[in-house]
């Protein structure tokens, strides 16, 4: 299984370990993720006004670069922007014409745009994944935190049931963890409000973490670097039992039996080989 891979800005910065753990786990699962050449930031938020065409240039350039072949991203925000930009290109002919003329590319909304979790569920299959697990996470009580961007708007994202999703819990089951369901798993973490209105983000993430803790979770998984930042940095946690926050890929890599030093080595090797190519 071979896919184009779009990393996005944060996967090369604050969320490097999401990329390195995914790459290691994907290799162990026989999934090849080939990084797009000369990619650029997706823009992080999807423009909600249809005359904001300039902010679509970057995601449409990425979509066109995949040449209609499956395109995978890991960051929930990147996936959201790419998927919605694709939908706009399919639906709005005027916008498509303006954007593709400006970029001088030929793109009409074709190709599968996937989050890596969808590759695991739909292309590999969680049953198959469960068979390939080397070190099941037995006895680890983990809750899934979905946030907003993978689920909503569900008509466009078509990722899972927006009110009662199961994909992350199914992943946790496949890697042998004890799944904890928490009522606030699809609530917003406050997103970029942690930049301008930290008190609001404190309120939202404290509710999310308290709800997971009360449900018995010792850890949370997320697919979004900004959710993770907010969960780790904005909650009011005085004297409470700490909750560890992971990228889903960290637990996946652990269940595949990949040790931290192996992950570092594979990341270094990749860097060396890409340096060698220059």
């Amino acid at each position: 299984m071979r896919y184009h891979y779009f990393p996005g800005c944060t996967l090369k910065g604050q969320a490097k370990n999401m990329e390195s753990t995914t790459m290691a786990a994907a290799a162990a699962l026989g999934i090849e993720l080939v990084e797009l050449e000369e990619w650029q930031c997706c823009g992080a938020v999807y423009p909600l006004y249809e005359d904001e065409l300039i902010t679509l240039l970057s995601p449409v350039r990425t979509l066109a670069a995949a040449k209609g072949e499956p395109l995978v991203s890991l960051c929930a925000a990147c996936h959201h922007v790419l998927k919605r930009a694709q939908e706009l290109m399919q639906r709005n002919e005027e916008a498509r014409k303006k954007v593709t003329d400006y970029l001088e590319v030929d793109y009409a909304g074709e190709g599968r745009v996937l989050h890596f979790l969808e590759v695991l569920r739909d292309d590999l299959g969680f049953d198959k994944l469960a068979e390939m697990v080397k070190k099941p996470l037995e006895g680890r009580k983990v809750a899934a935190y979905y946030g907003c961007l993978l689920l909503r708007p569900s008509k466009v994202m078509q990722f899972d049931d927006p009110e009662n999703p199961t994909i992350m819990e199914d992943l946790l089951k496949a890697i042998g963890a004890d799944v904890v369901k928490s009522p606030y798993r699809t609530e917003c973490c406050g997103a970029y409000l942690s930049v301008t209105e930290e008190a609001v983000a404190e309120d939202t993430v404290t509710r999310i973490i308290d709800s997971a803790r009360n449900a018995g979770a010792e850890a949370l998984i997320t697919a979004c670097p900004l959710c993770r930042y907010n969960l780790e940095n904005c909650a009011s946690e005085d004297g409470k039992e700490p909750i560890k926050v992971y990228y889903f890929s960290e637990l996946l890599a652990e269940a595949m039996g990949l040790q931290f030093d192996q992950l570092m080595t594979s990341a270094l090797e990749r860097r060396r080989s890409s340096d060698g190519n220059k």
Partner: protein
Amino acid sequence: MATSNKTRLVDEMKMQSGQDPNECYQCAKCSAACPVTAAMDLLPHQVIRYLQLGFEEDLAKSNTPWICASCFTCAARCPRDLDLARMMEGIRLVMLRRREGNKFGPADLTPEQLEKLPQQALVSGFRKYNK
């Protein structure tokens, strides 16, 4: 409360977002669903009511569109299939597109924030609060 003409903001909004605030029947499910109402001076369904009445300048003074984090829960729960997140974006853009309309930019960040915040937070913040 100033009554202003309802043409500009609402007409532009209908065209650019495909959302007609007049289709809302004020059930307030959006306000029940919104996770950040505690910090808002107008509840989400009140914003739609103000749009229906054309209270453009009152909306311009409200903090609600700037507290909205575009989580799309309001739109997911709306029984009229209206996308309030798009309407909030419309109010923000009307303000941002005015001269000196930017709300937040790189100069407003502290060195500690620059060090710590993920790139995604910075890019989204600038996109939402700056033109």
